[in-house]
């Protein structure tokens, strides 16, 4: 676990410092960054994907809301809202956990740990990087020039399953194109050169 990057959207310097003093004691957090406005948040998100964002929902301008929400959902970024005493509109940013400013140090850390907990669990099952036997079967068929539908029919699986397999193959091998996968198949003797064509 290389540590999680945390982004805080808050303009009050007191709250910024307060939060970071509390959060620094959580070892899983590697890096804390601050932004003052939703514009800044958005441009930050274009370059870097943090694991978690703690945000003051009042600072999110209406015209940024949709784009921020989309990125958060797409990149599966966890979010926690800071809850102030005053009445506020509920934000429609994905994720519902809140930190209330009246919370104790331990309560705040608990909320964050709870969010991080789900983050760490979700990251785990990605480990194996070698192709499974089934994926090798698919690679062979792709290299022979079969379409998704043809592969599905031949191996008695749905097209949807074929597509999922292909996505995983591309991720594991770092090869996207059919001709690239074909070379991989030949180099790894999944097919012989004279089998093609």
């Amino acid at each position, binding site marked *: 676990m290389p540590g999680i990057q945390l982004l805080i959207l808050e303009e009050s310097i007191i709250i910024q410092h307060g939060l970071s003093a509390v959060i620094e004691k959580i070892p899983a957090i590697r890096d804390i960054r601050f932004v003052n406005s939703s514009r800044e948040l958005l441009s930050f998100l274009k*370059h870097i994907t943090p694991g978690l964002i703690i945000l003051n929902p009042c600072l999110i301008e209406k015209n940024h809301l949709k784009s921020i929400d989309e990125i958060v959902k797409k990149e599966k970024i966890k979010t926690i809202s800071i809850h102030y005493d005053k009445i506020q509109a509920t934000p429609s940013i994905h994720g519902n956990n809140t930190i209330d400013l009246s919370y104790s140090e331990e309560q705040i850390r608990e909320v964050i740990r709870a969010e991080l907990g789900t983050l760490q669990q979700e990251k785990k099952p990605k480990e194996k990087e070698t192709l499974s036997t089934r994926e090798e079967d698919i690679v062979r068929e792709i290299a022979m020039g079969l379409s998704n539908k043809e592969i599905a029919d031949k191996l008695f699986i749905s097209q949807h399953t074929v597509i999922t397999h292909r996505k995983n193959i591309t991720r594991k*091998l*770092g*090869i*996207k194109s059919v001709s*690239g996968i074909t070379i991989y198949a030949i180099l790894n003797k999944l097919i012989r*050169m004279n089998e093609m064509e």
Partner: protein
Amino acid sequence: MMITRDIKMADVIHMNHFSLSILDRFGIELGFGDKSVDETCKAYNVDTDFFLEIINAFVDKDYFPKKQLQSFPVKLITEYLQKTHDYYMQVKVPEIESLIEQMVLTCYTQKENISLLERFFSGYKTELKNHIQREEKVVFPYTHLIENAFYSERIDKKVLQQMEDYSIDIFEKEHDDIEEKLFDLKNIIIKYLPQPNNKNLCHNLLHELFGLEKDINDHSRIEDKVLVPKIREMEKGIKKKAGIIA
């Protein structure tokens, strides 16, 4: 570090020698002594601000003040893009082809596998050529048409008809990921190809592929982030003028 008009042109090359190819596209030749970026550009009749935007975007991929770059004429941008096309087809691709050819000739451990790379790259070349032709024959002329219409007093019906038939949105949609196969080829060599006996050639090839990929990435970034938004704005402006949209 950001490149500014006052630093020495020589230092630009020292900072990142890949910039050489950019200078070449602007027609700037080596031997600039201690001249600054601005002085060198002036000597070659190059718009310094435009040069700075292009070189900074190239050196630092996160640098992108598109607002500034957007103030340049469309012609300047497409001329630059056109020059990068020439550079790919006339310099880089032949270089890579000849490297692979040499590899096939001098390889005795796995000639067959290297021939596969040769075939793969030749497929890529065709793809790149089609991509470039499409841009030069369809996209660039369209952008010039839009720019002219945008600055003219009255909007010609023909222009509106052409905007009906084609729009920059279509370009954006069909603008495919031309780096994909280069990425594959790199990974095949790095991860899966058993190292051939002529490994120096192989390393050179890899080096060239990284260079070309970086350059094409930069090229697409300028198309997608500068050219497309600029033309889209102009299309809107023309429609407003013609009274099609409010």
